[in-house]
């Protein structure tokens, strides 16, 4: 028998991570390009980058045991507990067009960000 993942679902709505519908559409299209039927998103943080902490985005189908699951705009976001500490309250949006930056994190925990915007410090 397969073990069911024990990821926690967050329905509280407080200090959650938000993703805009435009960002969801872009992630879905990336998933389709990779031939995935079901596309969700793993959002995480890792050490490194000029400012100390770097954002990580990864297409995912299911959460792992230690991840929190946040449902937003029809997409599930999977966040490990340590990353969540640094990401709570963040909104992920997509800035398209010739001058757009692609996926952009609006993170209220970030005190400073590096020039290219991929890393931050708290």
């Amino acid at each position, binding site marked *: 028998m397969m073990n069911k993942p024990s990821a926690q679902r967050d329905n509280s709505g407080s200090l959650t991570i938000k993703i805009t519908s435009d960002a969801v559409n872009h992630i879905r299209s990336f998933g389709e390009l990779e031939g995935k039927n079901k596309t969700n998103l793993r959002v995480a*943080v*890792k*050490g490194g*980058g*000029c*400012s*100390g902490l770097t954002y990580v985005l990864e297409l995912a189908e299911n959460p792992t045991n230690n991840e929190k699951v946040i449902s937003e705009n029809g997409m599930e976001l999977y966040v*490990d507990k340590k990353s969540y500490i640094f990401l709570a309250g963040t909104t992920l949006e997509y800035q398209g067009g010739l001058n757009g930056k692609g996926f952009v994190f609006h993170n209220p925990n970030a005190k*400073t960000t590096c020039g290219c915007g991929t890393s931050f410090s708290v």
Partner: protein
Amino acid sequence: MNLAELNSNVRIYTPSNYKFISVKGKDSIDLLDRLTTNDLKSLKSMEHAYSLLVSPKGRMIEILSILNLEDQIILGCSAESLNKVLEWIDFYTFGEEVEINLDEKDYQSKIMIMGENSIPFINSIFGIDMSLSEGKSMFIALNKPLYGRIKLLVVNKNYFDFGHYEIYASKEDIDYVLKLLKKNNGNFEFVNYLNDDEFNNYRIVNNLAGYPTEINENYNPLEAGLKKYINFNKGCYIGQEVIARLDTYSKVKNRLVLIKSDTEVNSELINENKHIGNITSYTSSDFYNGDYKLAYIRKSFIKDSESDFNFINNAGSEIKVYI
């Protein structure tokens, strides 16, 4: 003081305040590469490099000695900075597959062998050619009476860039090797065994930054003369943007220099009523009367001096600055 003569002798030191950390797991090198200044991804098996932990503001946390043993990475740092280093790495570790432990078995202690004659000295004692290029290491086996063969790790580290080898082993085995060295100086007349104070004097006159006096969060690695441990092509690491900017736009404010004064001087250096720097380390009074010191001095004061110069501080003492 004749520095050339001082460095041609063989000097041996076993620091009492040094710690080894074992880092295992497939993400070890990747994690350390993201957290420190040097290029660790190209560090091959049995290779050593120094790399600095710096804050996002580019200030120094500690200099790490990093040796890739393939199955694990051996990190070395001062005992005083151990907790800070472990906390720093832990803070920036998320989902990586790494296991970090204080090494309490294989590598607990080390012998530093310094000076231009360090390799001829080691070769004559052990009877094996241990010449290694900089940053390389090797294992050697040694017969320990009533015990059997012991394994020592020999590393050419070159923090002292005129010859600097180190031997890593357990505490007991290092004690045995130290006894062996003391019993047999080979053909070498001048072999000095340094205590903590003497090592500190030696480090100071060679203008080498130490933790926590020079390596601390008040200064960046470019000020401390540690630029050779920064890789400017490796991409992002913590503090990279600030360090790259300081270097590119020549914004480094201070420079670590050796100074000499035969009178007692305050740690704050003032010239013509302007603060020009701070003394960070003092040699002990039994070493050239404690005249030599290390100081961070404003680059705007040193300007582009290419040779040693003297100045008078506000208390009327003459201070020589070695460039």
